[in-house]
């Protein structure tokens, strides 16, 4: 089992969700985060105050998958999130020690496999 963490552009989040859906990956958590990935900073001006916005809004996906589903998940994330510009984000894959479905107590592979129907 792997935990796939992806930081993507907020405006690509819907495309990522669509791509994951097509890849039959269910079970996704997202959160809004701010970060900096080397892209150019935006300069904003409010009256006399000029600021460089060093953090950009991003969306973080967390997806727990069985090993077989890891590559399709990564492919879907690349397809949905890539614009080719600096700031497209990162994908991190980390080993997942345990996973438990709270409703049933099912563990590990069974817990990250979508319920049929």
């Amino acid at each position, binding site marked *: 089992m792997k935990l796939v963490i992806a930081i993507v552009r907020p405006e690509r989040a819907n495309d990522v969700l669509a791509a994951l859906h097509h890849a039959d990956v269910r079970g996704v958590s997202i959160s809004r985060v701010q970060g900096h990935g080397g892209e*150019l900073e*935006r300069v904003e001006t409010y009256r006399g105050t*000029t600021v460089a916005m060093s953090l950009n809004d991003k969306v973080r996906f967390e997806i727990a998958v069985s090993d077989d589903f890891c590559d399709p998940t990564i492919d879907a994330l690349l397809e949905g999130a890539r614009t080719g510009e600096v700031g497209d984000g990162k994908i991190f894959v980390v080993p997942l020690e345990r996973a438990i479905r709270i409703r049933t107590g099912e563990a590990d592979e069974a817990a990250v496999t979508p319920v049929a129907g």
Partner: protein
Amino acid sequence: MLAAAQVNAGDTAWMLVATALVLLMTPALGLFYAGFVRSKNTLNTFMMSVAALAVVTVSFAAVGYSLAFSDGNGFIGGLDHAFLRDVGFTPREGMTIPHLLFFAYQATFCIITAALISGAVVERMRFPAFLLFLLVWSVAVYPVLAHWVWGGGWLQERGTLDFAGGVPVEMASGFSALAAALVVRARKDYGRQALLPHNAVFILLGAGLLWFGWFGFNGGSGFGVGNASILAFTNTLLAPAATLVVWFTLDQLRDRKVTAVGAATAIVVGCVAITPAAGFLSPGFAMLLGAVAAVPSYFIILWRPRTRLDETLDVLAAHGTAGLVGILFIGFFAQASWNGVSDGLVFGNAGQLADQALAVLATPAYAFFGTFAILKGIGLLMPLRTSEHEESLGLDVVEHGEEAYATGEGAILLTQEDGARAAEVLQPVPVVP
């Protein structure tokens, strides 16, 4: 008419207030529209209305007012009042308020009409292109239509009735919006993603402020405190209330839920419908008009998003359609015993309906083709739309370098030296060719 040249204090006092009320409608519209867009386009959407306050006021004072309200031919006025020449304290013929105040009042109408069209192109039109559009449209389209019904033009000569702007304001903005949506084309995400209003409270508050301002819009269009003004003022209360009731009912029947965004829309539709008819209908028929006008607008708003037509904020449904219904309604239900001017078909004067029908044919055609040509022309000079990348970033940051909901997190203060450096080192926004 010696007495007519006298300024009347009561009339003037009310018209000063009415002018300020109508001016408030433009920022109210900005708020209303801003609530409908995604949060990343809040400021740009609002700024399109603010831009009308800037550009249209100047252009209307320069030539727009003269083209609408000075002597000319049946189609357009002349340049006698260009740059407000001879627009002073002496009332216009047959009026009791200073000419200068009459100008200011009319200017506020042109401002909001131009701002209304922005609803068709929000979230993708470039701000500089929109500024140029405002300038040309407020000179080439609005004054012509205002001249037709109010400035001594051919519709007024025929006897077409338009109390507060069914022709130059409501149908003009609605059908111009249709043309603008066709030329500027759909947002890139339109039809692919759910594009939802980001703040329904803005929408409700904006609609409330619009209704408030509309008392000046309709109530002031009698240019005094006479019976027509009182009738128009009260009808502006009654008609939108009837629209709301019908809208609630339609919502309840369709989805078993009465929606807040629908209610805000209904307020606007009701105010629009009564606009041309406000001083011509009995209070009872005003309510009937409000009720009737809800139906076509309701179903167009349901149907339009299922098409490829991204007329984003449904200016055609809310303003074009409801304005058209209001103009036609006069032809049926105008009542000389209330308005002292003319009866409609129901009261034995079929000719009035014919005159109203003419306005309903000519106005949309002029507004649509005029706007279509203006935007095609501007499109030859400069891009009308932002790039897809900019569209996804949101136009607040791209066009204005500001955010509506800046948290300040990650904002690094630039000193003056930084500021000079910033222009070189930091690009405002990465632009994708």
